């Protein structure tokens, strides 16, 4: 039956036609439809999404990669799932915070419209609570780093005891989920310490001894900017407690393109230093990598390969193309692009 359908649809696949009729069906590429968008703070919002029937669920604390078309271009980013147990109809939610120059986060927070269909990946990530819930957990979050933790609270707070949450935000008004967190604290379901950087300065982990005197006895989850994560790792390591610490590294990295860089051909295990004027195609060939090629002038698209991470510059127009782990693969023409930073290619 399946073979007949495939033979009828060739050179397309049956799914290409079925997608027209029902893009959310089971077996389709996973998609979701934005149901509603609610502002959280001035620069963050919660998007509620109805995922396609292939959605396999998640463990609180995990993130989902979402692919959205902005100005016609598909962009992928990862966001923590923030919805709780009680969310009706299997809706899921994410709460992005708009970062300066963040194409996707700004679009999601300020521009996206309910009804928009987005691409989804299945939930992933190991920043989760263990099956046997920890006693006396400590959560330290900063900025949008609170998003995976709010997901945990909304699902597990009822079964957790003696929870301490230290949360940092630039100002009081920038605290995401402020009312909800304070509500939990008021109901004695957790102990909350808010650190408003504009008043108290950036949180120093040495002050933990005062804030949470028993922090050494607590299994700890930390999520926030790289600075906080690095500090936490060394702080816990110094105390000899590295195995009690869980961190979630959220890369909101904006790749800074430069001139030239190391190009790594992942499958060939070859790395070359390429200058900013040499097409990657030539750099690869000179290093003996078997490169697909064609016109060598940017018109035939015979040299297109997948870039996993990195930044390249179009030698004709100066246009920069960048991607990283979260943003996902981008296909580039190697004959007209030169390295503009360290690059990883799928070759």
């Amino acid at each position, binding site marked *: 039956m399946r073979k007949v359908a495939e033979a009828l649809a060739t050179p397309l696949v049956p799914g290409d036609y079925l997608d027209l009729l029902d893009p959310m069906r089971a077996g389709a590429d996973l998609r979701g439809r934005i149901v509603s968008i609610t502002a959280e703070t001035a620069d963050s919002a919660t998007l509620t999404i109805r995922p396609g029937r292939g959605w396999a669920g998640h463990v609180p604390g995990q993130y989902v990669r979402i692919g959205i*078309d902005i100005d016609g271009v598909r962009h992928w980013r990862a966001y923590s799932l923030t919805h709780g147990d009680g969310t009706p109809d299997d809706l899921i939610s994410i709460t992005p915070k708009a970062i300066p120059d963040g194409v996707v986060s700004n679009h999601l927070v300020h521009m996206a419209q309910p009804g928009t269909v987005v691409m989804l990946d299945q939930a992933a990530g190991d920043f989760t609570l263990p099956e046997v819930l920890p006693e006396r957990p400590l959560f330290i979050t900063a900025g949008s780093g609170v998003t995976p933790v709010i997901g945990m609270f909304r699902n597990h707070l009822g079964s957790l005891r003696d929870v301490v949450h230290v949360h940092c935000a630039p100002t009081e008004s920038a605290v995401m989920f402020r009312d909800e967190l304070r509500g939990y604290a008021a109901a004695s379901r957790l102990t909350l310490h808010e650190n408003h950087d504009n008043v108290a300065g950036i949180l120093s982990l040495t002050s933990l001894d005062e804030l949470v005197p028993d922090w050494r006895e607590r299994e700890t989850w930390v999520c926030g900017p790289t600075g906080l994560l690095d500090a936490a790792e060394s702080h816990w390591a110094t105390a000899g407690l590295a195995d009690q610490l869980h961190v979630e590294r959220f890369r909101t990295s904006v790749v800074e393109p430069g001139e030239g860089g190391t190009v790594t051909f992942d499958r060939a295990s070859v790395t070359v230093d390429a200058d900013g004027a040499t097409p990657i195609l*030539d750099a690869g060939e*000179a290093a003996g990598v078997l490169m697909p090629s064609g016109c060598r002038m940017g018109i035939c698209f015979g040299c297109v390969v997948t870039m996993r991470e990195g930044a390249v510059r179009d030698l004709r127009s100066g246009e920069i193309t960048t991607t990283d782990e979260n943003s996902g693969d981008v296909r580039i023409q190697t004959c007209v692009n030169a390295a503009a930073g360290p690059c990883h290619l799928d070759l």
Partner: protein
Amino acid sequence: MTLAPERTTSTDSTATGPLPSTENPNMPAPGTVNSRLSVTSAEPRPQRPEFKKSGRPNPAAHLTPEQIEEIGHELDAIRAEVMESRGASDAAYIRKVIKTQRYLEMGSRAALLFSGVKYKGVRPFWWIGTAGLGVSKILENMEIGHNVMHGQWDWMRDPKIHSTAWEWDNASPSSQWKHSHNEIHHTFTNVLGRDNDLGYGILRVDEDQKWTLFYLFQPIWHVANAAIFEYSIAAYDLELGGYLAKRKRLSDEDKAEFRKNAQEVVAKIKRQATRDYVLHPALAAATFTGSTRHTLTANIVANLIRNVWTNTVIICGHFPPDIETFEKTSIEGETRGEWYLRQMLGSGNIHGSKAMHVMTGNLSHQIEHHLFPDMPSNRYAKIAPKIRDLMERHDLHYVTGSLPKQVASVYWKVVELSLPPKREGTTRRATILRAAKRAIKGKGGQGRRY
């Protein structure tokens, strides 16, 4: 594929590939970076001669290298302006065309399930289904397939509408098409002996192509080629002709590669034919309306419509009168500006309605397409006036005409150039007779070399 013409590079026209430099392994070897990447050249470019080697006037002889560079900058700017402004409305356009085509195809195929039903002496579902399927196949091949495979929509980063992923409803596998079309034809456009699209190896469409006896019958080849166009494209992309001619001199590696490609083509043709000529007619049997045979004929006719239409459009792109051809030597060390110039002079447009443009895959804007093959096709109409103005300011002929006019001119050319050129001291008749005699004796006459 190895039967392809070699690549010309700025300093070493005999190089067949990049030679690793011994001095600095991180720098490309001299001559490997394509001179066509830049409008400006490191070395001064020569003034174009007044006449081509064939004795015909050189259409760009009045332009200095500086003027050509200027034209290049102007075209780069036009390109940049469009490419930077690509956005949601362009993406919506191609998605709408794809959606329309798929619904049209499904609707037409559904109608054909009842193509045997007779009403007042006609079979309405046959006519509707056949017409719809023909139009759907044309849209799929032209505005969608051809353009997606050019990478016009790669910028959307939609893995399904991407040059590396698209497979089209045509006998030729997309990988082979991309090689012979995107790479060879678009790089070496109208260069005699390099661009096999110039007459596809079976037609003499330029006076500078050498006449042989084979071309005497080219009106027949031409019409036959149009009728089975998808298969001749497949054979052409496979370089079947070249393989048969050079078979004995090819290395085992080349032969193995040919066999691999040939298998790919045969497998694709099998899949296509099974769908059109077996499965859909069989499906029609299930409606018990006697539609099996009529679904079969509908598929044959729809493919024929597509073949003749695509051939008609494509011959208008480079074969009408006043479109220029170029000699191999003229493209050595060619800059991007000179390449632009060749694209402008080597292509011709068709003017007409918006619907006509869409049905040609916007190849009616052949000049604009050849200048910017990776520009989304819906943008060609908007830049066309700028290109025309630029060409006219530089006293370059912007070739365009209505579809009937351009088609008629090509058909006439095919007839006219089937005869040998007039030479002093002999008659055309005598030339033909001499060639025929040589052919009978088995000496040449087969050659289709330029």
